[in-house]
């Protein structure tokens, strides 16, 4: 899951969608709320909502590239509000910040499969994504189906958010995608290094965060994000000197 987050995040920086990506992760919440209302697995509801959100961003950007960030911000903040109304009490806290200790075998298998799918896609589509985010017009003349590839990337992003919901929740999963990538950007000198650092830092934050949570009895999600953010601050401070 962390490897997928690191890879997806590095390309999210290239696509300049850090804000949109974070907002997209909030759309999981109404999905969870509706799922609880109609009595299905909350993660299934979140996955449907996230994939729907990805398609919505894609459709908005197809119509116009202008001001989509604003539209996305409004739509998904509203989604967060609706989700907060639908889910209540402990459910809400779990959905927002994650609850890793209640992971079932089914969820583990689905999670690993999903993570493998995202990683395989990111590695296979790497060159095409570089061209797409360099310039969609250049990608088009190189024979790439830019609409399809753009949609696939957004779906990979949405799936990655879904993968992390159990651990980090709707509010924090966006951070595990963006923060390691933003940190990697400051250390790396080329694309391979950026992808390597981004993946490495995401895995590091997840393992260390989970370990601290285990030893101290605190929630896992916030600790993972705090570790990731500390790495970012540390790297920024070292580079400033």
């Amino acid at each position, binding site marked *: 899951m962390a490897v997928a987050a690191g890879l997806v995040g590095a390309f999210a920086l*290239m696509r300049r969608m850090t804000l949109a990506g974070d907002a997209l992760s909030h759309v999981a919440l109404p999905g969870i709320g509706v799922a609880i209302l109609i009595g299905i697995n909350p993660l299934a509801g979140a996955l449907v909502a996230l994939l729907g959100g990805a398609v919505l961003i894609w459709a908005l950007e197809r119509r116009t590239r202008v001001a989509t960030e604003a539209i996305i911000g409004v739509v998904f903040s509203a989604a967060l509000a609706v989700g907060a109304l639908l889910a209540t009490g402990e459910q809400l806290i779990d959905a927002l910040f994650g609850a890793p200790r209640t992971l079932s075998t089914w969820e583990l298998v689905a999670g690993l499969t999903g993570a493998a799918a995202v990683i395989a896609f990111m590695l296979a589509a790497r060159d095409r994504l570089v061209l797409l985010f*360099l310039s969609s*017009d*250049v990608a088009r003349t190189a024979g790439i189906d830019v609409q399809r590839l753009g949609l696939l990337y957004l779906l990979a992003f949405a799936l990655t958010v879904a993968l992390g919901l159990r651990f980090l929740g709707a509010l924090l999963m966006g951070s595990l995608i963006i923060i390691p990538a933003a940190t990697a950007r400051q250390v790396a000198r080329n694309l391979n290094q950026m992808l390597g650092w981004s993946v490495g830092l995401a895995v590091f934050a997840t393992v260390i965060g989970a370990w601290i949570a285990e030893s101290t009895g605190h929630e896992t999600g916030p600790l993972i994000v705090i570790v990731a953010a500390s790495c970012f601050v540390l790297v920024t401070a070292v580079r400033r000197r």
Partner: protein
Amino acid sequence: MILPANALEVEHLSVRLGDVEILRDLSFSVPKGSSLAVIGPNGSGKTILFRALIGAVPHEGTVRWAPDARIGYVPQRLDLERNLPVTGDDLLRARARLAAAQSSDIERVLSRVGLTREILGKGIGTLSGGQFQRLLIAFALLGDPTVLLLDEPTAGIDEPGQERVTETVRRLQEDGVTVLMISHELSVVVRWATNVLCLSREHTYYGIPRQVLTPEVLEQVYGEPVALYVHDDPRPIS
């Protein structure tokens, strides 16, 4: 059917963005191996024209490319931030792998645009404007294009850099590549282009530069008198 001698034929091309008509009823053709300069004031739709030609914006009318046309596109602006840790090597290798090109092809396109291997290790944000444009041309050449579309490749570049880019494009044309280039440099256009397409809100002019670019036409297109001097000929064109 497109005439065998043409790389591109455009008939009655119109583009609307929302309620605004950007291009209206454009017709022109580009013979294989020739060069077409596209000029016009800001907002006259030059980049939109290129994007319509590559199918990136919806349009009316017909755009016919030669069946063997492979298009290389060199955009004016990139979607990518220049200060990301991405090197020339990252870009060229990604493009080469997609075009099933070899490492030797990267060396070959670099020498065609007059760049050295040194450029490969540098972040794209650290390159000069001229170096970066030539890197983008090298990038486009990896697809082995028969037609090259360049959107203001000399904009924002110092004069020596501009000359090197122009020289690069001229050499590619000598190698048989058909070139379509948006340009602000009228003197370069007159010296170099086979044909010129002059866009403005009201009128469109198309033909041989020395015949099309009269002071009257330039004044009509740009809305003010434009003096045009050709470097090897100190007299203004009349």
